[in-house]
């Protein structure tokens, strides 16, 4: 009996292997253009990825159609979860290719974008990353674009900010094995040493993935007594780090990267989060464009309708921008072909929520402005913009 069921089970599963994998395209009454949403919804970056998805979904409700050759196409979003994991990202990206998407938006977290890059390039599908800041994402890949700034820029911005505020020495904490954290940390070190003189970064510490105890690292840093601590990391580790630092009596400012602009950090770190400084892409108090003004009012309603908080995360704004950029390119290309959209993206000029977007020859948005924010009274407060030429 057991054997019988076993074999039957295997047979059924093997059969469905072939039927299950290849989605049958249904007969379509109206013309549809598919755009893939390649974002983490679980795993380490699940939270941030979801915020980005919300921005994209909202953009889809604002601009549900696009005109190609005089015909109206409905834009259909195909969402896949890349689980913030490179191995999963490869399969997730392939599933988008199989689904026949014309373009892809994603992803939050540079690692998964780097992993998926060659797959999209091979399939000639252009991808626009809303918030992947690592230079490797677009490097050597014609089909990858991004609407945010890069880590070398961000590292320089934070180093500039620290120096301008009187910091002479800095300590850097990065996550071992994480390209975002290590990369940004390393760019900060370079910039800070350049601005403040060699040896200004007096301490560089690493921690492990899933590590929860930072006291030993922080004690080391406390002993060196830096003027500022730069700790680019995921939102999972940030509150741990901040709270433990304050408990050890470290009072110097702690700075982070763009990932830190997330309400989770304030919720978890509570009063200890006060005074945290970070750089980000967008600020809702200063709408840079008309698009931004309408986005802010509309998206706030959308957030409340979806049971989210009131604050607009910068990554949602970038997700929105990535969506309208692709739509603009589709219009310009007058085609649903990936290669044509890619060519159009190169020349496209879009006025988005986070400013106007044009791409350089690598596919990076020409952005030279970052928003510095500080946590005050449990809120992210806009501090200043920093421009680096």
């Amino acid at each position, binding site marked *: 009996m057991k054997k019988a069921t076993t074999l039957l089970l295997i047979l059924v599963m093997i059969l469905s292997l072939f039927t299950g994998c290849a989605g049958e395209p249904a007969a379509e009454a109206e013309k549809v253009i598919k755009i893939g949403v390649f974002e983490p919804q679980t795993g380490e970056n699940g939270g941030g990825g979801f915020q980005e998805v919300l921005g994209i979904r909202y953009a889809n409700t604002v601009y549900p159609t696009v005109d190609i050759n005089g015909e109206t196409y409905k834009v259909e979003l195909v969402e896949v979860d890349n689980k913030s994991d490179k191995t999963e990202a490869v399969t997730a990206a392939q599933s988008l290719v199989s689904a026949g998407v014309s373009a892809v938006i994603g992803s939050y977290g540079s690692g998964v974008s780097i992993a998926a890059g060659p797959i999209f390039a091979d399939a000639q599908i252009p991808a626009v990353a809303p918030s992947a800041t690592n230079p490797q994402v677009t490097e050597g890949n014609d089909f990858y674009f991004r609407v945010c700034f890069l880590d070398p820029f961000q590292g320089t911005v934070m180093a500039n900010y620290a120096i301008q505020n009187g910091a002479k020495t800095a300590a850097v904490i990065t996550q071992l094995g994480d390209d975002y954290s290590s990369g940004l940390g390393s760019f900060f070190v370079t910039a800070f040493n350049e601005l403040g003189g060699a040896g200004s970064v007096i301490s560089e510490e690493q921690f492990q993935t899933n590590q929860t105890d930072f006291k030993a690292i922080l004690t*080391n840093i*406390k002993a060196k007594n830096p003027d500022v601590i730069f700790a680019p990391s995921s939102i999972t580790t940030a509150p741990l780090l901040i*709270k433990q630092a304050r408990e050890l009596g470290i009072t110097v400012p702690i700075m982070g990267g763009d990932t830190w602009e997330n309400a989770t950090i304030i919720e978890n770190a509570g009063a200890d989060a006060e005074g945290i400084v970070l750089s980000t892409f967008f600020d809702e108090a200063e709408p840079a464009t008309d698009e931004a003004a309408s986005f802010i009012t509309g998206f706030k309603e959308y957030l409340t309708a979806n049971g989210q908080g009131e604050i607009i995360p910068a990554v949602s704004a970038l997700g929105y921008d990535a969506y309208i950029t692709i739509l603009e390119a589709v219009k310009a290309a007058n085609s649903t072909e990936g290669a044509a959209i890619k060519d159009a993206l190169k020349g496209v000029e879009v006025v988005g929520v986070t400013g106007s977007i044009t791409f350089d020859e690598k596919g990076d948005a020409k952005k030279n402005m970052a928003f510095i924010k500080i946590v005050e009274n449990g809120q992210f407060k806009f501090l200043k913009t920093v421009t680096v030429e």
Partner: protein
Amino acid sequence: MDFAVFLQHCLTGISLGGAYALIAVGYTMVYGILRLINFAHGDIFMMAGYFMVFASSSMPWYLATPIVLIATVILGVLIERAAYKPLRNAPRMSIMISAIGVSYLLQNLATYLFTALPRGYPTLTALKKIFQIGPLSASLVTFITPVLTLALVYVLILLINHSKIGMAMRAVSKDFETAQLMGIKINRVISFTFAIGSLLAAIGSILYFTDRMTVFPFSGALPGLKCFVAAVLGGIGSIPGAMVGGFILGLGETALVAMGYSTFSDAFTFILLIVMLIFRPTGIFGEKVTDKV
């Protein structure tokens, strides 16, 4: 390194070691009786963290704490009943694989129920009071952890050496089948062992997370593995051994970071394990076991 920094590191190490020790005792007890590496132990510890997050959001801490302890004990015994008991006569490998499966399940369940985002651990104001002694700065819980660990282990040793159930536990760990023949209710003893192990994990979890302040689905994975190493280090099956192992590990790891080798703090744990296994496989306090044919 000046003296104050050295002291601060020692404090960190001892407090970390204390929390490790409590979890390691759970490992060692289960191993002593079932010869099973309970891979899910670290995840029980993590679940205890989540129980506290939810319990304390609706009631004061003096009510929440016992509820968390009870819930964790129930979880531990339930896991034993569901996942290990059916495999009592199976080869050791199957039951170990089952333990890995439970660990996998608990992590996925936590991700599903509580999302991957970290949750802030409730601040128990009484434990969280920050002390400043000269240049040293630490919260009360940092001081309490090692003391409480020592006290609990002492009580546990008394229990095992002087109570009836303790005697039964020792009998079962010496010889499973003979103990059964002598009329000891094996299943009750095993459940009791899991209950104590989970209770210690829950207490350890309160101390550990109060000190570290957030819980996420994988926060049990690394401490779990490390505490198993601590248990092996001390000689698996030996309760004082597990405690000593926990402290060695906590202090060693902190010392390594203090010397600037934070990259290798995890590797250190395992190097220690392997060195120990090669030169003294029975651990510091373990007894020599001969193989039976």
